[in-house]
């Protein structure tokens, strides 16, 4: 009989998560695996309870999209007790979780932060001052993307100064409002921008255009590789973005789970490719969504 895999996704109505979910489901159908899909709707507590639901339903495997590096560990431990293999999709968890999961597939948000730091350093020639427009405070992705960026700057001994980090909750309007204030406050001191995603980068671009019409934007680096970010790179409003494909993300997770269900050993870390897109390669890379 068909195996059932329990998929605890971040949300089912979200620009990135939705295509990832669709890809995962489609691939599962091809592989003959049944998916029980549960959406946390971005609430960690719901998610921890849903892992319990998966255990109670005696799923054959669990794919978890963690929204917190810690909170799922006890639930995952119980999954292990119940002999249900679990893997993580999209976001990593703390090291203690490694005992209870078979693998983590997906982009490395910390790595993305590092790549962003490299790309921005390159654009700014290693000096100047940046503002960081971060996602939700306390959110795992935010923590990884900001942490990787800051750590990498330190690592390479960069002279780039971080003027300010603001939280704009992955929201374009909030980023727009926050950027207006940042531009007023720092003005021409801003010689670079790092946004935790392309949506918020868009917010900064709009604020910049409002404040200094005609003046070129400072180099801006975003993450996700959205279609409109590609347009911005073409027009020179953005310097780069990092493509992380939700489709790859979803596919890789279910394929890995399929291998586990077949009794194969899998690697503890299976990254999806991250591509830094600048003007140089914008025409050759596919946007993520």
């Amino acid at each position, binding site marked *: 009989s068909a195996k059932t895999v329990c998929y605890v996704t971040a949300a089912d*109505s979200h620009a990135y998560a939705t295509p990832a979910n669709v890809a995962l489901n489609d691939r599962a159908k091809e592989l003959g695996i049944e998916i029980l899909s549960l959406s946390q709707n971005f609430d960690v507590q719901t998610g921890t309870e849903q892992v319990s639901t998966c255990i109670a339903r005696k799923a054959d495997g669990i794919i978890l999209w963690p929204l917190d590096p810690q909170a799922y560990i006890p639930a995952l431990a119980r999954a292990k007790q119940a002999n249900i293999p679990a893997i993580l999709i999209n976001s990593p968890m703390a090291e203690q979780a490694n005992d209870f999961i078979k693998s983590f597939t997906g982009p490395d948000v910390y790595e993305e932060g590092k790549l962003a730091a490299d790309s921005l350093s390159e654009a700014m020639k290693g000096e100047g001052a940046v503002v960081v427009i971060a996602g939700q405070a306390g959110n795992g992705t935010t923590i990884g993307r900001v942490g990787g960026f800051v750590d990498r700057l330190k690592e390479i001994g960069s002279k780039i100064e971080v003027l300010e980090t603001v939280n704009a909750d992955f929201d*374009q309007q909030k980023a727009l*409002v926050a950027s207006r204030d*940042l531009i*007023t*406050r720092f003005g021409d001191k801003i010689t670079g921008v790092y946004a935790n995603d392309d949506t918020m980068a868009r917010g900064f671009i*709009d604020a910049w255009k*409002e404040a200094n019409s005609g003046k070129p934007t400072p180099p801006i680096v975003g993450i996700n590789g959205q279609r409109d970010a590609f347009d911005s790179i073409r027009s020179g409003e953005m310097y780069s973005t990092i493509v992380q494909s939700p489709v790859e993300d979803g596919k890789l997770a279910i394929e890995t789970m399929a291998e586990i269900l077949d009794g194969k050993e899998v690697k503890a870390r299976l990254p999806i490719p991250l591509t830094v897109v600048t003007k140089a390669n914008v025409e050759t890379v596919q946007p993520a969504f």
Partner: protein
Amino acid sequence: MTDIAAMGQTTKDAARFSQGSRMVGLISRAGLTLAILAVILYGSLANPVFFTAGNFVNVLMSMSIVGIVVVGMTFVLVVGGMADLSVPATIACGAILSLALQPYIGPVPAFAVAVLLAGLTGLVNGVLVGYVGINPIIATLGMGTIVLGIVQAAVGGVIVYGTDPSSADFVKSRILGVPMIAVIFIAIAILGNFVLSRTFWGRWTIATGGNYSAAQASAVPVRAVRAGAFVITAFAAGFSGGLLGLTLQSARPLVGQGYEFSAITAVVVGGVSIMGGFGSIPRAMAGLVFVQLLTNVMVLQGVRTPIQGFVLGLLIAGAVALDIALRKRGVA
């Protein structure tokens, strides 16, 4: 006749009545103005960029979207409807539909349909609250959840992008240096003020909030008036959502999140009673300006985003407590 009039004159000594403490009345009315001036003064001293035209235009632009919602929310609070928690859903409705329908029917009809559908949500809210008599918090909470769910189902959770750049250019244009979106907001605020303070509908709104059964017994169509406040708010939120969509040229189901609380905060800080029967658009606007300026100063001073919530919370409690303390001393 003359006989009755004569009796009345002698019945009471008019000197026993005076108008209450004028001083306290003045503080209550001028308090917020003073607070706004204080913020401006502090901001100017603390940060050189604060007192610049550019910054004020920023503040004005940032407050426009929520400001339009505030105009509607004032009606809800004044009519005694406590709060409209379906605002995030109606904003999403406005933002998503005004973009999603653009390719099919053009930008202007798309905007109109979006606002109308948002208004329809308000109508259901209004019927539930005004005619069925359900607690507004529950009714709007329930409706908000339902509408947001439907909107999400409709767009399948993906971001909707704009396809008509001219509509974006329109909302981003300026009139005499004032951003279009702020012009629209100010026009709506003036209209709202006219309706609430000058027209019979506004008076009915205040009367219904002040004493529902007495208003009803005075031939005020109380159910319609109560329902109307929610329709007005939904239209305002839908309109504001539409503008938001055009500005951003993209919309997701959660664009409206948090606007309901921001709007209530502004109205309440403005001294509009959540119990109804008292309040005006200028008061709500003063509350909005104060909150926005304060947030602006905090951002300019580099206060961390989560900590801004702390200040905002203290501010709401403080403003309302002060207002209550003043009113206890007998001001209108």
